[in-house]
């Protein structure tokens, strides 16, 4: 009701930096009790694997949901820190729960891809054994918690107790799977009946009211259940409709397939060409029309010019297609709101063998650095010790594997195609460091050392920069140590990376860093940490190394 502000304050709010890397560092300070890891494998895929796994060892509990026992679920008994002796299984207090997950063919739901299109997928088979969908897990977990809290008078329990969470399936099913269809309807939204129940489904977000008479989960999705029909489940073949194919699935918002599509017509409202005709002004009907839902006020004439001082949508002219911007124009950059901007500039990566050739400022001065003993950085060009890690490396993917390996390293037909973690080096680097094709190499940074088979290839080329030659090491990142039942294993390339983040969205720098590479396998067991520490002391690394934010002369700190 209006009195309780429609329970808006029950919704969780941002209270700080909730980025994943900041959260892992808080784990190390015992500031995080629990962790849900669903469908990802941060022990392998995230930067600084060692910090990820050590962070997990500080948790009180964690839940891992996946098809397989990935490394993020088994680090406590077979991860690299167990092998090196840094952690002992019997000393780890984290309680790890593993829930096998249902695959997309074993549950109902939608996919939304980068075209903003939702496609419903139908459950084809029951999930095997104990595997269940995310929906099943979250719904039953929520219900269990609500039952435990029933009768509580604590204010902090109100958000959970006041929740309406009716997703019970109307069809009896032995797995007690909730109804994904009901979730989709709720996201779409409906009119609330006199008795407070579920009324007519909304057809468009324009039907939403600010008076408590409607409800909806997310306004951009309103319309996915227009007319009481699951629009995302539509499958009219392309040959039976226009080339835009608006009746296959449903795109948010309003099934608009290309947003800002008024721009497909010239200032007078005519298509730029017959071939490119998409949305245009129809003088006869006095409205916009075309192959797609026009992304413009329907009856606004192309020659409409607002009175100066008009605000809101009526302040946008008839030839300004970018209606989500206050002035209706397309913007190349935003003047405010970014910590790093507005225009890109050339900065060297956090760890670089070269001075910035363009500016006196070496690296991005707004980047987030973490000056910690467990996050030491390699020295960059000009710093003492830079020659200790003289090569650059980058991480990338192979066709045969999928991200952190959870969906490929457990499959024999994919794993046999690329069975081992390997590094790619040029013949020149191989000669310089004594690496043999098919042999072993150890790659080392201030974070850790990993071993990989060697592939010598002309595809890797030495870089000549500023009159010097620097060699590159290529590292596909799909392997992990540990994990149960994997067909192939290997060291994780991302363990080499430290944590330095961009200031806007806290994304790690994982594509350019420095390293050393030597022939032979990595020291095993508890010899690996002393090996890494020896490099660090030879390079003279401190928590300040490469972490200076302002490097221009006379700049303020």
């Amino acid at each position, binding site marked *: 009701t209006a009195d309780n502000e429609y329970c808006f304050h029950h919704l969780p709010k941002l209270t700080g930096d909730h980025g994943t890397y900041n959260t892992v560092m808080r784990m190390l300070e015992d500031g995080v009790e629990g962790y849900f890891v669903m469908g990802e494998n941060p022990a392998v895929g995230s930067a600084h694997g060692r910090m990820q796994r050590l962070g997990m060892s500080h948790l009180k509990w964690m839940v891992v949901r996946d098809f397989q026992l990935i490394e993020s679920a088994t680090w406590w008994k077979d991860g690299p820190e167990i092998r090196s002796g840094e952690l002992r299984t019997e000393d780890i207090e984290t309680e790890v729960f593993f829930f096998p997950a249902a695959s997309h063919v074993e549950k109902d739901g939608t996919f939304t891809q980068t075209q903003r299109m939702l496609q419903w997928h139908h459950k084809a088979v029951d999930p095997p054994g104990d595997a269940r969908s995310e929906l099943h897990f979250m719904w039953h977990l929520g219900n269990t918690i609500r039952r435990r809290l029933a009768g509580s008078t604590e204010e902090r329990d109100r958000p959970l107790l006041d929740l309406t969470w009716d997703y019970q399936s109307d069809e009896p099913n032995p797995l007690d799977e909730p109804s994904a269809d009901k979730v989709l309807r709720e996201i779409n939204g409906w009119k609330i009946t006199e008795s407070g129940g579920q009324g007519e489904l909304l057809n468009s977000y324009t039907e939403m009211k600010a008076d408590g008479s409607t409800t909806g989960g997310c306004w951009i999705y309103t319309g996915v259940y227009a007319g009481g029909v699951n629009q995302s489940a539509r499958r009219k073949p392309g040959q039976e409709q226009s080339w835009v194919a608006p009746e296959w699935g449903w795109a948010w918002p309003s099934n608009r397939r290309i947003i800002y599509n008024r721009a497909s017509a010239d200032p007078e409202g005519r298509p730029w060409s017959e071939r490119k005709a998409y949305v245009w002004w129809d003088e006869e009907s006095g409205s916009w029309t075309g192959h797609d839902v026009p992304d413009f006020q329907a009856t606004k004439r192309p020659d409409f010019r607002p009175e100066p001082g008009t605000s809101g949508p009526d302040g946008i002219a008839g030839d300004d297609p970018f209606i989500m911007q206050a002035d209706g124009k397309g913007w190349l950059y935003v003047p405010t709101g970014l910590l790093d901007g507005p225009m890109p500039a050339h900065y060297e990566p956090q760890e670089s063998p070269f001075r910035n050739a363009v500016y006196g400022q070496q690296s991005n001065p707004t980047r987030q650095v973490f000056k910690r003993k467990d996050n030491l950085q390699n020295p960059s060009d000009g710093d003492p010790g830079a020659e200790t890690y003289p090569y650059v490396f980058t991480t990338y993917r*192979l*066709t*045969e594997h999928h991200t952190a390996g959870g969906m490929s390293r457990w499959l*024999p*037909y*994919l*794993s*046999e*195609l*690329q*069975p*081992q973690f*390997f590094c790619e080096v*040029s*013949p*020149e680097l*191989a*000669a310089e460091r004594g690496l043999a*094709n*098919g042999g072993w190499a150890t790659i080392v940074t201030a974070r850790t050392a990993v071993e990989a*088979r*060697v*592939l*010598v*290839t*002309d*595809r890797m080329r030495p870089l000549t920069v500023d009159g010097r030659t620097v060699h590159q090491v290529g590292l596909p990142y799909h392997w992990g140590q540990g994990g149960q039942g994997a*067909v192939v294993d290997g060291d994780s390339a991302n363990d080499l990376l430290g944590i330095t983040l961009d200031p806007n969205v806290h994304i790690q720098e994982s594509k350019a860093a420095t390293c050393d590479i030597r022939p032979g396998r990595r020291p095993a067991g508890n010899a690996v940490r002393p090996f890494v520490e020896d490099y660090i002391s030879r390079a003279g690394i401190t928590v300040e190394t490469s972490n200076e934010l302002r490097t221009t002369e006379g700049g303020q700190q």
Partner: protein
Amino acid sequence: MNRNSLFGPLDPAADAGWDEAPKRKGFLTDTSVCIGCKACEVACKEWNAIPADFSDGITGNSYDNSESLGASTWRHVAFIEQTATPRGSTVELGMPGVRPGLEGVGSGAAGEGEVGEQDGEKPDFRWLMSSDVCKHCTHAACLDVCPTGSLFRTEFGTVVVQDDICNGCGYCVPACPYGVIERRTGDEGTKNVGIAQKCTLCYDRLGAGKTPACAQACPTESIMFGDVDELRERGRARVQELQDRGIDTARMYGDDPEDGVGGAGAMFLLLDEPEVYGLPPDPVVTTRDLPEMWKRAGMAAAGLLAGAALSFLGGRS
């Protein structure tokens, strides 16, 4: 029997006794559009339930860890890294076609997307990718030497092993001029251990009116399935198109009915000499020389008889 039953151009299904056989079916693999994704390898294994066969880690041979066709690899993607001026310390053996000459690479980097650059700049590197498969020869040596009749010619003109008849004798293995067929090794529980296994051109899928699994899966249509006559024309036209664009090393392989196996049911469009891809340049069916061998054996037998008769006629005392 046809005059060409052992060698020379032939319609293999008719020669094998099929009346009113459908048009001969086969593959054209256009390696100029292969992207090395190995979907063909995976699709083949999935459809035919072929066991995984791990080598001992990576092979060190570019991105090719399947090594070669065999009993448990019926589609094999080869990766050949070609540098005009190799920077490694490779020993010069003077072998043909291992590296393209400056005139061999052509003025466009075929397989890397940008073709037809006529400005004279030749790329110094090519990464060739090719999906190899059983050739389903017109004259199939494996079929000719099989003592049990396990290997047979289907109505589609393809060559298939009946795994419940094969006794694992292994005669077919050295007979094949391409080294395709092999006997499966593995643990006791593995399917068809000891049995000769190779590509069936998805005989079970053809019978249901479907395309072979590899052709179905190939995302670039590098692997094309269809009537051999039509594929042959399509491949030759594509070779002409590539040569017109400056890729003068483009060529067909296995398309000539006059060649040593009577032409293949699985043809290839290559961008270099066959040896570069690990293919024999002049494969010959082992039974080609059979008539000549019998003639010589006959002459030798006659000579032996004559000699024996002479030795009895003379010197009777």
